[in-house]
């Protein structure tokens, strides 16, 4: 009888009610994991349908209205229901208290509430599919979204509600990081993932209300005919774009910053090496969070905003590139003189470095005013966005999920299948999206149901890539689910890591630590002690 298992948070207490009303941050993290995986599945199916339709010009599978609904749903579900909550609400929830030696987050009830709010908001968003669909794109630009006959209100109300879930998590994390750290665990001794979560939480709390207000104004305009954005009622459509991007640009940093935090952990652990430039990485997260509030206008270089505004936004946009570059170079320097093992999480971390660098560099193209005029609203933007969000955040999430998988479930996945899948995803991703840089530069506009024949070869190529990518995720689902039941039992510290969550039993007991955690070493003291891998 495996007593650690029986005493773990997975088994005590037992019963469905004990899960649905749990206040344990680890269980809430798992509840979120199921939620976002459901969203990822739905969003992914829509993505594949969109790519299949684009295999050839004209009608391939569906009519224009259905296509428009599908790309809208793909975007809205992936962004608001998957990628924004993905890392903070699952891995963040599961790990933050363990990493700082706490028993739970500061407000466990608020934490559970945030999950219910997430589910409630998601139900509204998904209901809009049944209620006539939404065809506005995930950006809901006015006046199209005011006039569209789709279920815009249900979708925007869903996103409005989802915003509260995000704010609750952010608030909880800020207080937890300030007040719940183990005595002696000072800021500079925190794992960098915690710094990433902290920077993310600040943006969540400060920016999300603006999205809520914007969507509420949109709902009021549609319902009561109050003219705010629709010129037919005396409103201004460009005002909507300002409001929307004031949230949605910082939101992309809500998505990427926690991913960067994971990468810092993975690179250090799998190089068995003190992270290079700890303070530079930590402060660059805060710098990115700060500058992210000042760059929203770079989505609007061709919107008719003034040349002066465009110039200022372009300049500020380039400032974001510098802390991002600093991070990449510090991670690279961490590899130097390390002892590098290429386990699956590390393969994802290296994929991240490769893909995020492409995403970042192509971002410089889009920040440059004159070049952006040509590339704006083309597939170049689609490719850039996916390189940052999927090549960046999703790769980091998958790396983190594999890295902490044994901590969550007490079992290992099949390393062999995991590596094959990582290769499939890496290849599928690049085939799908690298071709889109070429499409965009040649002038292929985005959100096109039909297209001119000259774009067909690249579109078909991209669609083939999406199938490889889809196959990769199916295989991953199979071996991960299999491992939960039949996986090899994992030990306390299979990777030889130094952060606190690897010092408690695996899987951890409800109270996290059976004995008070000791702060003998910092999270990256690989130069002071040779950590043993314990994995039996």
């Amino acid at each position, binding site marked *: 009888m495996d007593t650690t298992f029986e005493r773990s948070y997975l088994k005590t207490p037992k019963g469905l009610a004990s899960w649905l009303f749990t206040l344990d941050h680890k269980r809430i993290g798992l509840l979120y994991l199921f939620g976002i995986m459901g969203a990822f599945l739905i969003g992914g199916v829509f993505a594949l349908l969109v790519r299949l339709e684009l295999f050839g010009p004209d009608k391939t599978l569906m009519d224009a209205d259905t296509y428009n609904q599908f790309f809208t749903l793909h975007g809205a579900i992936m962004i608001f229901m998957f990628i924004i909550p993905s890392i903070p609400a699952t891995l963040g929830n599961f790990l933050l208290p363990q990493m700082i030696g706490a028993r739970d987050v500061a407000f466990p009830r608020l934490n559970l509430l945030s999950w219910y709010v997430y589910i409630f908001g998601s139900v509204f968003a998904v209901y809009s599919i049944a209620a006539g669909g939404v065809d506005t794109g995930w950006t809901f630009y006015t006046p199209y979204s005011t006039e569209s006959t789709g279920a815009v209100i249900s979708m925007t109300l869903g996103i409005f509600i989802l915003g509260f879930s995000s704010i609750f998590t952010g608030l909880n994390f800020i207080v937890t990081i300030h007040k719940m750290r183990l005595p002696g665990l000072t800021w500079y001794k925190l794992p960098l993932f915690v710094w990433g979560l902290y920077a993310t939480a600040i943006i969540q709390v400060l920016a999300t209300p603006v999205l809520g207000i914007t969507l509420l104004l949109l709902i009021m305009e549609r319902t009561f005919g109050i003219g705010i954005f629709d010129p037919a009622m005396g409103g201004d459509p460009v005002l909507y774009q300002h409001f929307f991007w004031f949230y949605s640009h910082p939101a992309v940093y809500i998505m990427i910053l926690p991913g960067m935090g994971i990468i810092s952990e993975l690179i250090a652990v799998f190089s068995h090496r003190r992270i290079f430039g700890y303070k530079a990485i930590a402060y660059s997260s805060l710098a990115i969070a700060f500058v992210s509030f000042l760059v929203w206008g770079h989505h609007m270089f061709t919107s008719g905003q003034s040349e002066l505004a465009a110039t200022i936004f372009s300049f500020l946009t380039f400032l974001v590139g510098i802390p991002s570059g600093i991070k990449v170079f510090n991670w690279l320097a961490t590899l130097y003189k390390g002892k590098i093992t290429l386990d699956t999480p590390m393969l994802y971390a290296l994929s991240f470095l490769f893909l995020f660098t492409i995403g970042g560099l192509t971002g410089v193209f889009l920040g440059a005013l004159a*070049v952006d005029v040509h590339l704006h609203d083309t597939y170049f933007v689609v490719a850039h966005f996916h390189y940052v969000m999927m090549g960046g955040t999703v790769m980091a999430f998958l790396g983190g999920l594999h890295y902490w998988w044994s901590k969550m479930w007490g079992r290992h996945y099949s390393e062999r299948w995991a590596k094959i899948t990582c290769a499939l995803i890496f290849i599928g991703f690049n085939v799908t999206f690298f071709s889109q840089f070429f499409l965009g530069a040649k002038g292929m506009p985005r959100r096109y149901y039909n297209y001119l024949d000259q774009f067909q070869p690249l579109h078909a190529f991209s669609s083939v890539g999406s199938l490889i990518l889809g196959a990769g995720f199916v295989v991953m689902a199979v071996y991960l689910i299999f491992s939960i039941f039949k996986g090899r039992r994992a030990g306390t510290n299979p990777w030889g890591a130094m952060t606190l969550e690897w010092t408690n039993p695996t899987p951890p007991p409800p109270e996290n630590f059976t004995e008070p955690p000791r702060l003998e070493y910092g999270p990256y003291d690989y130069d002071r002690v040779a950590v043993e891998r314990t994995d039996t």
Partner: protein
Amino acid sequence: MDTAGTIFLPPGSSTLAGDVDALFYFLVYASIAVFGIVVFALVFFIIRYRHRRTEKLATTQGPSHSLRLELLWSIIPTILVIIVFVWGFRVFIRMHVVPKDAMEIKVTGQKWFWSFDYPEGIATVNELVVPVGKPVKLLMSSSDVIHSFFVPHFRIKMDVLPNRYTVTWFEAIRPGNYDLFCAEFCGDGHSDMIGKVRVVSEREFAEWLETGTAGGEDLPPEQYGASLFVGRACHTCHSVEGQRMIGPALNGIFGKEHALASGERVIADENYLRESILEPQAKIVAGYEPVMPTYQGLLNDRQIDALIAYLKSLE
């Protein structure tokens, strides 16, 4: 730029294209250089410091930080992005300063076609005819939602808004036909909101202004109507082969009775067709959205006659 274009960009065909492309290619080469450094370091370190799981772990002694390196990889990228910023800014300003001698054409975007009004009183749909080597100023607005005027060969793009005018300009450097796209999502017909920019010599342009859009007027009405059906973008929303598109299919409707959204029934005679072209909102066929814009001012009587003749001829 050569006329064949490159692997990235379509051939630059306006005076601005060369400036944009120069910066674009600077960015391509700079990115390849930076990416090369990152990937080289990545691969080199992995090979050089590879560790097998079977080996025992020992402490590692690499440096933990270096102010000199941090400054190096902060300052060099800063200089690079300042260069790119200033460069992009200068070209952007050139894009936004319209030459004084530019000829002005009014552009209207609507679901889902472009129309162009010339100072000479000519109006065209989905075809912008301009002379080579002369700056053209486009004064643009939308009559419904936001559209965006995008000609990849000219490297210009500007949103077209319902509540204000926006301006862009170009000077074509060689004759030819260039694709015009709508780049801002505007609904079901978004991807069919495609026009042409036809660049002709000064002499041909003068001739074209003389005859206006009269091309085809000497054809029999049915054939003239068929060319107008495509030329005025009717085909974006209406099939003539029976499929349901954004609007109803138009073959075989003439002389038959149709149900309207209001519950009434109407016989599709000449007067009904004429009204539906000029006042599309007056009678809506049951099951369709009232989205068609008016063609008032875009078709003269002769052209409406020809379109009706064409519709009558369809089985």
